[in-house]
Every structure is written in C-alpha cells, then in structure tokens.
C-alpha cells in the first residue's frame, strides 16, 4: 500500500505547491507588471501587498459557481480539472535535489513533455461545453497553438538526451557540465519561447485574448473553477521554469540537500520573472505570426541545435 499512499501524498503536495506558487506568482506578476508600467502594484494588504492574492482567493472560493443554462453541465464542470491535473503530474519528474525526483523514471523527459498534452483536451472541452462562440474559438485557438508548440519544445530538450545518453532526468543531472550552457543556447531560446506559448501567456495569449474573445475558453467560468484555470496557468509556468532551470542551467549544481533546492528555485524564479517580463513588454501576436513562429522559426532552430550537438558529441 506504500506506493499508493506515497502517490496520494505526492498528489496533495503537488496541488499545495501549485496553489502556493500561484499565490506568489500572481502577486509577483502584479508587481512586475506594475514596475514595467511605472505603477506600484498591490500595497494595501500586508507588507508589500503580499496578502492581496490571499484575499482574492477567499473572494474566488466564496463566489457563486455559475454554470450557464445552455452548457453541457458535466463536461463544463470537469474540464478545469482535466486542465489542472496533468500540469500537477508533470511536476513529479523534475530533479529537485541531488538524487531526488518524486517520480524517478527512465522516460522522465518524455513524461514531462507528454503529460501536459492531456490538458489540451480539457481546454478544448471547456470551450466546447460552454456553448459560447467566444469560448469555442478560444478553445480551438488554444488547441492549435499548444499542438504546434509541443514540437519545438520537445525538440529543444533532445540535445540533453543526446549529451547524457539517457532520458532519466537524474542521469542527465549527473552528466551535466557547465559548457552545456553555451552549447545549448539556441535550444534554450526555443524552449523559453515555446514554453511561454504552451502555457498560453502573452504575447501568445490568443486563446484568451480579452479584447477580442472576452476570456476565450474560460469566458463563462467563475469562482473556484475559474481559479483552477488560473492555477493551471501558473502551475505550467512554475513547471516550465523549474524544468528549464534544471536542464539548461544545471539545476542544483551538485549542491547537496536543501541548498541545492534553494539554488534551483532561485534560477527558476529568474526564468519565471523573464516570462512575466516578456508578457508585459510585447504586444499580442496575430494568429498567422503565431503559427509561423512555431513552424518556420522555432522548429528549424531546434533542428539546427540538434545538428550542432550531434556534431560536437563525437569530439567529447
């Protein structure tokens, strides 16, 4: 029974980590965007406005959970969970500390890329079940975007599989060398851009473009279910940052125990802040630019990176 108990514990922990990360992330995003727009941001509740998001959470939980009359009730209610659960699962394979990843599997890298793909179904079903044109268009846009960017994103982490000769994250961390940073620079650019697109954040937030689609696939959601969508977005951001920090920047850098975890989180925070910076700096892209970037720019870049790494390996 220990396996099941451990799994249940892990599931609970992942949910909690994402909830806390979303709380801090929303606060951080408000502060970052405020800085960029020369404002102060939240400051009334708690020191530096830290308790603002907590107050917002209480509001969201207590808010009425509205289901539109025309909606497909069951699918409408279950869709946020289908979006959220895979994101939480993907956190399991990240190497947090020397010799520790909650789910240590030989296909960890593929797992991290494959499992969040399930959440696309949740997004599509949310758009479909709302029976609302804006939501449907948002869902379709999200699916097209997420499928397109999955390809360069997966290609961008393949250099590490080649260099380490393994798909097990802990093996890759053991083999990691500092000169992998300059060697995989192109891959990092591809990973960074496609991760921003994968979690539907600006300038790739076409599925929820508020000026044209209200809020896209979650336009009809309110209260706690809306909050679950937000948590999934920030969960995706956290997972992408942690994975990027671990693989592209050496993660815990051989430091033992808690010290290594702190270093990993610090690097991930830098990546997450850069993602927020990008969101508040660039205007939203057009759909054709969005697809063109994935297929004509990022995918060839990722392939060039693979060729470079392939050419270097025989000399190692």
């Amino acid at each position: 029974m220990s396996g099941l108990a451990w799994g249940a514990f892990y599931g609970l922990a992942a949910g909690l980590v994402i909830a806390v990360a979303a709380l801090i992330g929303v606060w951080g995003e408000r502060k970052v965007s405020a800085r960029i727009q020369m404002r102060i941001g939240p400051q009334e509740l708690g020191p530096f406005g830290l308790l603002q998001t907590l107050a917002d959470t209480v509001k969201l939980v207590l808010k009425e959970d509205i289901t539109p009359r025309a909606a497909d009730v069951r699918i409408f209610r279950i869709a946020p969970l289908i979006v959220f659960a895979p994101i939480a699962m993907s956190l399991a394979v990240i190497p947090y500390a020397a010799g520790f990843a909650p789910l240590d599997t030989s296909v960890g890298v593929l797992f991290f890329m494959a499992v969040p793909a399930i959440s696309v179904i949740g997004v599509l079903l949310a758009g479909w079940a709302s029976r609302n044109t804006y939501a449907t268009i948002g869902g379709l846009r999200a699916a097209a975007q997420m499928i397109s960017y999955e390809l360069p994103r997966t290609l961008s982490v393949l250099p590490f599989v080649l260099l380490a000769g393994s798909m097990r994250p802990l093996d890759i961390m053991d083999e990691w060398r500092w000169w992998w940073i300059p060697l995989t620079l192109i891959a990092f650019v591809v990973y960074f851009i496609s991760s921003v697109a994968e979690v539907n954040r600006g300038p790739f937030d076409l599925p929820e473009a508020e000026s044209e689609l209200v809020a896209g696939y979650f336009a009809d959601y309110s209260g706690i279910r809306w909050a679950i969508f937000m948590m999934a977005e920030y969960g995706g951001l956290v997972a992408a940052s942690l994975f990027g920090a671990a693989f592209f920047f050496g993660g815990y850098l051989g430091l033992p125990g808690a010290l290594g975890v702190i270093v990993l989180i610090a690097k991930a925070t830098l990546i997450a802040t850069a993602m927020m910076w990008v969101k508040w700096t660039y205007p939203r892209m057009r759909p054709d630019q969005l697809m063109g970037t994935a297929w004509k720019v990022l995918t060839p870049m990722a392939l060039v990176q693979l060729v470079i790494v392939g050419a270097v390996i025989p000399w190692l």
Partner: protein
Amino acid sequence: MTLASIIFALLGVVAVSGAVVTVFARDVSRMAMGLGAFLLAVAGFFVYWGATFLGVVQLFVYIGGVLVLMIFAIMLVHRSPDGSPLLETRHDVAALAVAGGLFFMVVMALRGVVPDSVNQGIESGPAELTEAFLGPMLTHFEMGGVLLLAVLVSVVVILGGDDR
C-alpha cells in the same frame, strides 16, 4: 487480492466503460471523452506491464495528438442546437457482431502469449527498445516504416486524385 490486481481491474473497468461510452453516447463530445478514458487506460496497461516508454508515447501521440485533432474536427462541424442525437444512421447489430468476432479472434490469437494479470516487474525502457529495434527486430521496424509510407502515399493519391 493484491494491490497490482486491484489496479489491473480498475484499469480494465475504465477501459471498458470508456469503450462503451464511445459506442453508445449520443453526443460526440461525450464520445470523445469516452475515447480519451479508454486511451488513458491503455496507456495505464502499458505502464502496468512495465512498458513505460510505450505508455508515455501512447499519452503523447494518441491523447495529446490524435484525440485532440478529433475533438478539433468535431468542434468545427455543425452541431444541432437542442442537443438531439447527431448520428442519423447506426448499425448497432452489425457493429456488435463484428466486435464480438474480432474479440474472439484476438483472444484466440493471444491465448498463451499474455501471462496472467500480475506485473512481471520487467521494465522495457528506451534503451531496451532501441536495442530491440536496431537489433533482432530491425526488419519488422523497417517494414512498419514502409507500411506507414505506403499509407501516406495512398492518402496523397486519394486526396489529390482529382486535382489535375
């Protein structure tokens, strides 16, 4: 009854329920959800039998790719506003006969090949698969590639047949 057999039975229940929903649901989005549950259970079976790589690829390709494209297509087609049945013709009896016959054939063919429902604890990861595909299974692997190429060419021929 061990934990492994309980998980196996649960996966079986999910797979069969998903398949039943896929066949009998009157609404296409429900069908897609049923199919998703079935494919997820199949991925679970792969992991259960120690083929983790295959399980994750099943997730990636069938749920993250094929199913998403199917739902995508469903969303683009016309939907009746009152939620009435979207399928006008059905061949339930014939489908049941074909499914029953196919099931019988599969059971007869696989009898003796599949061990009983206990995980053998063998993990076939990417390294083992690569060794098999580039070693003793190379011909089968290449044949699979040729078959897929033939399928692609036929699709091009069928779709572009009238385009002179």
